[in-house]
């Protein structure tokens, strides 16, 4: 479920909206080394092959690889928040805010399954109205099944 307003613009350049209006994360897959990278690449940053990288739709489920809990940030950013690095099923790694988990290191297990959801940017920043961004939520409590 994505509860951002329908006409909201995605903030991250590696985000696209499909024909049904659903936002998703864009990746690039290299046919030479089979690496998957977040965002658009013409040539492969891993193996350096030219012109054999194609755009793919990245998965909306993954596992938490790493995180930090940010307590001090820029003006307009709501703190504390969990900055999470997530390895997506099917390849690609993406960073985003982890929601619906207490910002307590003891309650954030490495490897926890998460879903990717798009929501209003105003959840995280004061000037976010009219924009959407990807967030992570624990998979067991997320609105979307795998």
């Amino acid at each position: 479920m994505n509860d951002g307003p329908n006409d909201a613009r995605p903030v991250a350049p590696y985000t696209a909206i499909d024909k049904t209006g659903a936002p998703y994360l864009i990746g690039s897959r290299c046919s030479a080394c089979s690496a998957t990278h977040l965002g658009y690449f013409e040539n492969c940053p891993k193996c350096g092959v030219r012109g054999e990288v194609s755009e793919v739709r990245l998965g909306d489920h993954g596992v938490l690889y790493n995180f930090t809990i940010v307590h001090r940030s820029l003006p307009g950013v709501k703190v504390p928040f969990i900055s999470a690095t997530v390895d997506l099923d099917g390849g690609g790694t993406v960073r985003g805010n982890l929601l619906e988990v207490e910002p307590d290191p003891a309650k954030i297990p490495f490897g926890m399954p998460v879903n990717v959801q798009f929501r209003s940017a105003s959840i995280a920043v004061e000037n976010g109205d009219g924009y959407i961004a990807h967030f992570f939520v624990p998979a067991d409590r997320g609105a979307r099944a795998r």
Partner: protein
Amino acid sequence: MSNDVYIVGIDMIRFGRFDDAKPETLAAQAALMALDDCGKTIHDIQAIYAGTCNGTMMGQRMLHYIGQTGVPVVNVTNACATGATAFREAYIAIKAGIYDTCLAVGSEKMGKGMLVPKNSGGTPIPTEGLTGSGVMPAVFAQMGMEHTRKFGTTFEQFARVSEKNHKHSTLNPKAMYQKETPLEMVMEAEMIAYPLTKLMCSVNVDGSAAAVLMSEKKAREAGLMNRAVRVRGSGLASDPFTERNLVMQDINTVTRLAAKQAYEMAGIGPEDVDLVELHDCFATAEIPHYENLGLCAEGEGGSLLDSGATRLGGKVPVNVSGGLLSKGHPLGATGIANIYEISQHLRQEAGSRQVEGAKVGLTHVVGLGSASAVHLFEKA
């Protein structure tokens, strides 16, 4: 006679906030101090390598304050590895036989507050705090958390790095902060980005450092071998592709690459190193860097710290200067300031913090983006 390259003069200003200064005026101060350290003048310098992260043509503008001799000046920028990169360029030029006397200088006039990455993605609103955090404390907090994930390193161990380095700083009159911070004080300080509290973050300050390098032939002719420090190895690397580094910066692999180059060039190993000045921009970085620099085996960084081996008096003291955590971290100056500290020990001129019998020292810096430089030094 060998074609080795030597540091003959080196110095740094005590870092701090100098509101009326410019990068070039700070650079001029350090350059004159380094020249005085070897009794030379700007007229003896054949080429200059000048590092700063903010602005360009700093080296030329520095000469307006100390003498416009018309020598080639190369301005270098390489994030937090800027000063070490300028030093390395001077080393390479002498090693190549093009010059016999060069000046390397690093200087920075910093803004206040956190370093924020520029909104270069062209996004309609800034992504900081919206798609996670890319500011320095968060990047280095995750460097620590990755170590925690792999090896179970604790918040207390990371905090202990600050306690150690701040304790060392009380012996260094050139450290900006010379205050002990007991472990509890470090752990109870304001949390910035878990597991980093305010006392586990280096401070953005102004500063400069400079070195005069010479060929062996020139140093002998000038009668400067007595206090000369030989450059044994010089490594510089950019970040190779690793699985997540486009999203979560990998500060480890780039450091390992640079260290490998430096050790191979020197023909020595980590077991030969008597002291280390490494890039503790945040306390979480130090423990992984023990492993990256080969001071201990993979996963044993935490126990190396706990054993006391990296304290003054231990087997391989690390950041006896107080580190960036105490000295302050003026980006472009840091790399040469680290080399200054090692040089003082190898010359047996480090005063009350002298590492007894120090013969070989290692310096390390790493700048995000990424660049890492590792140097090995030995008393001539």
